């Protein structure tokens, strides 16, 4: 049959290029909301707090915010990884404080070099994750239970490692540098500019290659618009954090010494980029999604489900150990005063608020960053507003419920559109 010029691209296999509005609206109509609700929510939160406290969007406060989300964001990346497999890791908070204690103990009490301390910490984190993954994937204890045991158990081990004082002060300058240094202004610009160029080139190249191969490609206008948006956002963030815009929308002179992108922000962004690549471009990532969608199908397709599960739990705990390092650096101490339960639950909330489904197979790594930004912004804004801790907890709970409600409604919407 010959193709008609009428609007019937739906019936053909190789179908031509879709128009911009076709592409965008068909996805929205089908309930593929993506990160849209989270982004809108974030904007609303920022507008609200800026209207209450004019310093909220100041360079200094945003720099603080970036610093504050380092721990939650890093933990949330690992949480997204296990959520995608339709599993949960409740132990990340305890693993992170244990790793913090390990690095404190060996560097301060045993006199190890800081880098060996970090290496040991990473190994301990990965090993704990592999251990828990083994109990779940090979022995068959549900991940909820294994990691709940971990949440309790590793906190106990942490207190044991810390010793009787319950705190180890870590004044090592190298470890301290993680939370106290920022990227030099020029590097920040180079990172944003270079990153944008790389993003633009790879995206456009990919679409051109698809075209050359005769495969349906996204309209170049969509790709171009996204590229411009990403570049503008990256440059704006760097401009703000470098202090170039301070005083522009804030009246009066804020004292802003720590100019530049905070190192934890760079670490978090690096982790997000790497894991986003790992989950979308490699077989490992595809198997993670496949296991979340239908583990039996993955097994029958020849995927070593047990190994993938253990590896993912190991990566999750490895990320928890990195979060523990950032925490140690921020506090200049490893302490038993941190509540690992709250740390864990905030990381899970971040992943879910960011748009990763609790039911597996849906979502992506970027939700860790977005969700951490939402939670961090609320917490930061309420602090700035002088609110009591109890208000923070209530508001965080309400926001979690709100975002999950949107997710549930979108799911129903998708089901109605035939995309359960």
């Amino acid at each position, binding site marked *: 049959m010959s193709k008609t010029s009428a609007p019937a691209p739906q*019936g053909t296999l190789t179908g031509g290029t879709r128009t911009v509005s076709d592409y965008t609206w068909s996805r929205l109509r*089908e309930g593929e909301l993506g990160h849209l609700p989270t982004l809108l929510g974030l904007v609303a939160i920022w507008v609200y707090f800026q209207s209450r406290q004019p310093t909220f969007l100041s360079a200094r406060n945003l720099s603080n915010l970036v610093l504050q989300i380092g721990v939650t964001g890093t933990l949330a990346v690992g949480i997204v990884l296990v959520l995608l497999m339709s599993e949960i890791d409740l132990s990340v908070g305890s693993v992170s404080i244990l790793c913090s204690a390990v690095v404190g103990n060996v560097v301060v009490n045993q006199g190890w070099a800081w880098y060996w301390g970090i290496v040991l910490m990473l190994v301990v984190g990965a090993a704990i994750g592999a251990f828990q993954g083994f109990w779940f994937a090979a022995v068959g204890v549900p991940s909820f239970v294994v990691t709940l045991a971990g949440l309790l158990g590793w906190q106990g081990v942490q207190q044991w490692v810390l010793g009787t004082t319950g705190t180890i002060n870590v004044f090592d300058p190298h470890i301290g540098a993680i939370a106290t240094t920022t990227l030099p202004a020029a590097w920040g610009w180079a990172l944003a500019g270079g990153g944008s160029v790389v993003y633009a080139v790879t995206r456009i190249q990919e679409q051109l290659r698809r075209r050359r191969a005769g*495969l349906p490609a996204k309209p170049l206008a969509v790709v171009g618009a996204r590229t411009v948006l990403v570049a503008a956002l990256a440059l704006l963030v760097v401009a703000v954090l470098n202090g170039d815009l301070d005083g522009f929308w804030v009246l009066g002179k804020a004292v802003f010494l720590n100019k530049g992108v905070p190192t934890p922000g760079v670490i978090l962004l690096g982790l997000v980029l790497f894991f986003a690549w790992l989950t979308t471009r490699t*077989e490992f990532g*595809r198997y993670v*999604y496949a296991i979340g*969608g239908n583990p039996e199908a993955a097994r029958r397709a020849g995927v070593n489900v047990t190994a993938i599960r253990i590896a993912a739990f190991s990566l999750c705990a490895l990320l928890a150990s990195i979060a523990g390092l950032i925490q140690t650096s921020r506090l200049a101490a490893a302490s038993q005063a941190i509540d690992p339960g709250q740390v864990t639950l905030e990381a899970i909330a971040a992943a879910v608020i960011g748009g990763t489904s609790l039911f597996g197979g849906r979502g992506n790594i970027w939700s860790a960053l977005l969700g951490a930004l939402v939670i961090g912004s609320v917490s930061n804004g309420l602090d700035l507003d002088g609110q009591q801790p109890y208000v923070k907890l209530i508001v965080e709970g309400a926001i979690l419920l709100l975002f999950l409600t949107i997710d549930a409604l979108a799911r129903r919407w998708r089901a109605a559109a035939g995309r359960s």
Partner: protein
Amino acid sequence: MQALTNVDFEVYAGEVVALVGDNGAGKSTLIKCISGAHLPDTGTISLEGEEVKIRVPSDATRLGIETVYQDLALCDNLHVVANMFLGREGATPPLVGPMPELAMEKRSLEVLETLHVTTISSVRQRVASLSGGQRQSVAISRAVMWSAKVVVLDEPTAALGVAQTEQVLALIRRLRERGLGIVVITHNLHEVFEIADRIIVLRLGRRVATFTHEGTTPEDVVAAITGARQEAAP
């Protein structure tokens, strides 16, 4: 519990064999033995005249025996290409290297086109958004795209409407034309007579009858299934 007793059965290239029998007759157990999902206590399997060992599903697929289960074993959250290549993406290095996405997508389109599966508008849509017939077609296409010699189909049309059933049966005929050996498990006798060259009847874990398409009536087959008439097992 013993599900099968001294069952032997055979399928030739370019032939559709229907495996029929009442619930609990042992049909599913039998195909699980062939596909590696179930390890029989005793017995041998030969492929092209040579005895082969099938212990796990990957053994079967390596030998060119592909099974499409009733539940299709598709990941609803992945798109069509991802499902067709699941477990065989061919990334270099394996597992942590980038997948050859363009080649995968092209090949998927080619395979679907050769098999005349033309109702799928985009191979990058999630499988969840496909109709039952389309899902079945994807599952079958995936099975045969890896130079399969034998394809086992478990109730391929059980959940489908009339038009979609016709799509799938046409697809099965095309596979036969391409010289594959096809084993179909089905409850639907009408369908059996529409596509099968031979009909093998299982009853209570034994092979009780074999019919060829010609000269057989549905009543003969029903009688064998229910045990109303005992024939000498071949």
